[in-house]
């Protein structure tokens, strides 16, 4: 058995899933790439006004003044195709991308032996597509071609158990024969496929040639063509090309929030969550802007995804306006996390990542993190690395690890100062925070490093007690005399 998922007026449906409020109004889709731009698809509301395919926009507007005309765009169609195939793949391992808006699934090995189980299975597929904003129909039959014919019926789910009965009642136009063949058959008075079959395979093929054989094959319950199996990409994406350029954050966020919601629902439908988000902004001038957001705790929660995107975009300035948008999610299975008894980990890693991003935007990414000491004797040598508190091992030692020296409150950069020397030792200091005599002194402590390269450094250091003032660390280097900090 095979199932065919069919989305009627696919190009229009792909656009309407991003504008659900237009569904109730008359809408027509115009393909501007045609030599003579004309309407190629329209919705049911438009059809009631007599709008048909092939009319020009002005002809259609003459029939319905409030007709909404949309220009065909490939980006939403690509997203809708992706949704269709990924959803189908979640329900059957053997799928075929049959045509735009049509996907065929093989039911072999799916344990759908009885009718209620099959109906429930079809209903779940339609629900998953519906949650992604696509209205589809499903047909189930013995062959892929019959399943597709069944899917063209107005019912949302058509399960064909008796193929011969089903075929006998089909209008001949459902087989979509070539126009000249259809005309001849109509002139002969052949209205249904049942009548067509009664003419006889040999007789018909003598008259029409291979075309007739193809039509016979399509409606034969024993003619099972092999599926061209397809594996959908592992990346889930939503994309849009804007008719007018976007220059501010607000309209971009509207689209991003919508896309994040759609991705969230698509992932949820197949029990996955997002591990990474990839944002691609097409710019009016030059190449696109691309950025990947790692999600510390993979999630499909729409609110969290939206907030992460918003946090990133708040500090983003692009060189030119935005003309297209693509948001992709790399899916993964939801994490099952067993916390250790003594593990103090982050309650909400995604919130923490967002806070870090906001803090980095505020103070600069180089000024936030966990300090790591550099392997050098150069004073104040450290670097900051992104914090990783998730898997830091606990220190179970009861002993206090002693630090070295008296704590110093540093001046960054060191305070320039003037020293008065008595032979080799400073006796008086003058700087922004203190001017006066030095009462007690320790040093000099000499240190140097990197003598083998251009970053060489050398300094003399003193610890001094000042008269009625603070306890200071002073140093002299090739650049001058400085106060490094206050002992505190």
């Amino acid at each position, binding site marked *: 058995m095979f199932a065919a998922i069919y989305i009627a007026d696919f190009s229009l449906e792909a656009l309407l899933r991003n504008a659900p409020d237009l569904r109730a109004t008359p809408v027509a889709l115009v393909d501007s790439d045609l030599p003579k731009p004309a309407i190629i698809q329209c919705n049911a509301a438009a059809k009631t006004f007599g709008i048909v395919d092939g009319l020009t926009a002005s002809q259609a507007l003459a029939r319905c003044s409030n007709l909404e005309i949309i220009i065909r765009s490939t980006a939403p169609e690509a997203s809708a195709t992706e949704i269709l195939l990924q959803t189908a793949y979640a329900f059957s391992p053997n799928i075929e991308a049959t045509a735009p808006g049509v996907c065929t699934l093989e039911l072999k090995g799916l344990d759908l032996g009885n009718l209620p189980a099959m109906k429930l299975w079809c209903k779940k597929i339609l629900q998953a597509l519906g949650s992604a904003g696509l209205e589809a129909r499903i047909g189930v039959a013995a062959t892929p071609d019959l399943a597709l014919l069944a899917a063209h019926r107005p019912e949302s789910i058509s399960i064909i158990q008796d193929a011969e009965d089903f075929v006998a009642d089909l209008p001949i136009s459902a087989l979509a024969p070539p126009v000249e063949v259809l005309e001849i058959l109509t002139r002969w008075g052949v209205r249904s496929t049942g009548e067509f079959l009664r003419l006889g395979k040999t007789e018909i093929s003598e008259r029409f040639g291979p075309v007739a054989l193809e039509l016979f094959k399509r409606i034969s319950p024993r003619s099972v063509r092999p599926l061209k199996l397809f594996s959908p990409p592992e990346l889930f994406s939503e994309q849009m090309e804007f008719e007018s350029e976007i220059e501010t954050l607000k309209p971009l966020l509207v689209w991003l929030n919508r896309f994040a919601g759609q991705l969230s629902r698509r992932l949820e439908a197949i029990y996955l969550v997002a591990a990474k988000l990839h944002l691609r902004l097409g710019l009016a001038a030059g190449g696109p802007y691309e950025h990947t957001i790692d999600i510390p705790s993979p999630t499909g929660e729409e609110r969290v995804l939206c907030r992460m995107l918003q946090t990133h975009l708040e500090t983003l300035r692009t060189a030119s306006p935005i003309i297209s948008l693509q948001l992709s999610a790399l899916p993964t299975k939801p994490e099952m996390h067993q916390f250790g008894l*003594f*593990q*103090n980990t*982050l*309650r*909400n*890693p995604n*919130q*923490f990542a967002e*806070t870090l991003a*906001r*803090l980095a935007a*505020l*103070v600069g990414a180089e*000024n*936030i*993190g*966990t*300090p*790591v*000491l550099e392997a050098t004797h150069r*004073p*104040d*040598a*450290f670097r*900051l690395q992104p*914090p990783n*508190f998730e898997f*830091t091992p*606990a*220190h179970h*030692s009861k002993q*206090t*690890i*002693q*630090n*070295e*020296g*008296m*704590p*110093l*409150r*540093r*001046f*960054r950069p060191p305070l320039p100062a003037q020293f008065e020397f008595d032979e080799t030792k400073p006796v008086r200091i003058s700087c922004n925070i203190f001017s006066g005599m030095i009462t*007690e002194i*320790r040093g000099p402590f000499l240190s140097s490093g990197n003598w083998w390269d251009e970053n060489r450094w050398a300094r003399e250091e003193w*610890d*001094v*007690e000042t008269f009625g003032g*603070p*306890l200071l660390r002073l140093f002299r280097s090739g650049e001058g005399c400085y106060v490094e*900090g*206050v*002992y*505190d």
Partner: protein
Amino acid sequence: MPAANVIQLRTLLAEKIPGLRMRLEAPHMAEYKFQAAGLRQIDEPLQGGFPKGAITEVIVAGAYYGSSTLLQSLVQQAAKANEILTLIDGNDSFDVTQLDEKMLSRLLWIRCRSVAQAIRAADLALRDGNLSWVILDLKSNSDQQLRKISPATWYRFQRLVEETGTACVIFTPRRMLAPARARINLRLQISLGAMECNPGGLQHQIKIEVSNSMRLGGNGIPPSTFK
């Protein structure tokens, strides 16, 4: 016993404004949990350490020192307890090179260049909800910058920590924080002779004066000095 309509009003307000505080008075001492500082001089008078869900002001005024000594001690304590400590360094003055790398592994250090930046960073850190221990060091910021902080800022911080249960410790050069639940004055005088003793010994030389623990509870604790 509140009247029925008052109860209804409170329920309605709680529904409309989540996180709204219904009581005018501060919670009782017994309602607080504490973040142990690892120093007897602090943990004993504060009955367990810095109160969680409240602000503690640490004042290091005039000719006294000890704020960096205490900060180092708190970083060590956080690492030992495997707690994340967030240090918002108001004037980028904290010296990390004197600490062991293991001690630094639980430290989130935010290096700021001005009070305004530090206040905004603290606001973000306190809203996060993951950070159980946030320290804001304004000790070495200029008085001119500190005077620009609106008093409402501290009340906003107090509301934030009440929601998240964060222990917030703010180092200041003078008394500044009206809504602080606990206020302690550091008293440490150091000389070059102190270079001889190890920093652990120095930590125990810090004198702490709990000057305003009255707000901790209904009964209050009289001001006391611990050595």
